[in-house]
């Protein structure tokens, strides 16, 4: 796997590059935002490590520019600033994950792998979780090869939960995603959809975290 790293600090950059090499990644290390390519498509990078606290303060602009250009390469932001709004702004701006310095290198490596895995899964035609197969483009889901009869909303719900299996999705997030273009559904309606999905899929597939949200547990 090939990593593009934008990091200005010499010591940190050097250490990370060595660590990546040990783990079997190849990497390209740039020290300034101005050296970064306008589009990620040509760099053949599987993942980008972007330090937001670059001295010329252009980390965010880079992130925005790439996403605006339609690049879907997974990006992990690393930053020394831990303010909550920074984190949210980074994720809202299109980053896939967020790490605060100092971090343990092993953590970074596992996050890189997770983010690449997730991106690969989402880009693929079929998402597989054991006996469950979801084909996002054909709006079809199968359990043990049997086609599931799901309404459009139920399918969307399943897809959102499947984006990050084993992680909790809050009620608000799901409510928004079930109606991406309109007003979010109310929580009562969401519960009904979850109930129906459980009925069709099997109760153990969708776990409720009471008051918080739901989770796909394959």
């Amino acid at each position, binding site marked *: 796997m090939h990593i593009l790293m934008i990091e200005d600090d010499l010591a940190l950059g050097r250490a990370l590059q060595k660590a990546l090499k040990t783990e079997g990644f190849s990497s390209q290390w740039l020290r300034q935002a101005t050296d970064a390519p306008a589009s990620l498509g040509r760099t053949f990078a599987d993942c980008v490590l972007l330090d937001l606290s670059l001295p010329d303060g252009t980390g965010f602009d880079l992130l925005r520019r790439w996403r605006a250009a339609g690049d879907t390469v997974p990006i992990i932001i690393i930053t020394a600033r*831990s303010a*909550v709004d920074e984190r949210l702004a980074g994720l809202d701006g299109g980053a896939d994950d967020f790490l605060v310095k100092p971090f*343990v290198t092993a953590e970074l490596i596992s996050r890189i792998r997770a983010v690449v895995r997730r991106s690969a899964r989402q880009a693929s035609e079929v998402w597989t979780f054991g006996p469950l197969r979801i084909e996002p483009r054909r709006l079809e889901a199968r359990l043990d090869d049997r086609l599931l009869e799901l309404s459009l909303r139920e399918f969307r719900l399943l897809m959102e939960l499947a984006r990050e299996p084993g*992680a909790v999705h809050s009620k608000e997030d799901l409510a928004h995603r079930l109606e991406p273009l309109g007003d979010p559904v109310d929580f009562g309606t969401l519960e009904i959809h979850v109930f129906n999905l459980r009925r069709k899929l099997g109760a153990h597939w969708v776990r409720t*975290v009471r*008051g*918080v949200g739901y989770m796909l547990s394959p």
Partner: protein
Amino acid sequence: MMEALRPTLVRRVLVALMLAFALVWGVLMLVQQRDDLERIQRDRKTFAGALAAVLDKAGTESEAMGAVALAERMANDMRRQQGIPGNVLLQLQDIGTNRALRAGVSTSSADEVVSLQAGRWAVRIMVPPFDEPRWARMAAVDMLRYLSIAFPLVLLPMWLAVSRGLQPLKQLSALIASRSPHDLSPLKFNAMHAELAPLTSALNQLLEQLHARMEREHAFVHDAAHELRTPIAAIAAQAHVLGMAADPQDRREAQAHLEQAVTRTSHLIQQLLALARVDAGALTQVAEVNLPRLIRQELVQASGAAMRRSMEISLEAPDQLLAWVDPMAFQSALRNLLDNAVHHGRDGGRVCVRLEQQGNIVSLHVLDDGPGIPASERSRVFERFHRGAAHDRPGSGLGLAIVRQAARRMAGDVILGTGLDGRGCGFSITWPVGGGQENFPFPR
């Protein structure tokens, strides 16, 4: 020029005094007019009465005519002397023969008429109407004379009093200006005038607060640097061990320990920054927030660690609860409580978060069913850098100090009670939510 036109207290007093005099002038004029009109009526009555008495004794026409002519001349002479224009006209009639002995045509149709009768004679006295503008002019000028004598006599003492009164204020300014910028000790100023006492005491209170805050900040920096020594010493030691490790197994172990030490230090740094942020000092940034939504976001974040320990988290809250809060303070408090509950709870245990509102008091509860905190430590648990006696999971000792400071920042407080099923810990933060941003109480 603008400097000269800025309002000054002294000029204000001057203007107020002039307005007061103008008001007095107006009122006195009205009073004077009423008095004068009364006097005029009285004088007329007297005049008519005297003429009637004389006519009573008049037997013949010529006596009566003589008396009336004389009275008319006297009345008009007096008018001339007082400078009143216009003439009084007297008409005489014999009632017996009904003959007008003295007619006369007045020049004005607005004349007032006074009629009297004495014996066989009837007299009509025609008086020109009261010339109000002329009277007003004359009365005004008269009054002005008196008032302009009074004005400087009143102004002078007032001016002196006000000027002298402002002296202490000038002295206070000079006193403050002469202090060194590092001097935050209370002002020693004896405010003689009652009005200046609140100013000096407010200033002294402000100085005291500044002084306290600076001391707190110094103490914080000192404590923080001190607290960082130990974890960094651990890192140094582990790095040394790593360097000496002979076989791969030893190396892996030493590396793991080293990374743990780094994580601990990193966590401590996070906490120090969070504590600095919620420490009283920086201005509170208030926003209207949907609290359950914020809580859900935090719970989603915490769910990773919770699931790794097979813990079950839940939230009891209305779907929506809008409140004006400091979002950063709220988030810091909740995050620390959740971290504590997940770290110190038992494997497979429960963590329950509750949010409720009664009137304008909102309360947030985080309860767990873990081992809890022994009674002997409960009172000290919110102190900075206080770590529990039995801690197998090392912490910074700052989490609960951050929670308390954040709660206070929201003008509320945090208390420790029982957790779930009568065991574990139950932390409750309560704080008032104002009716709007303008009602937001100042944090302590």
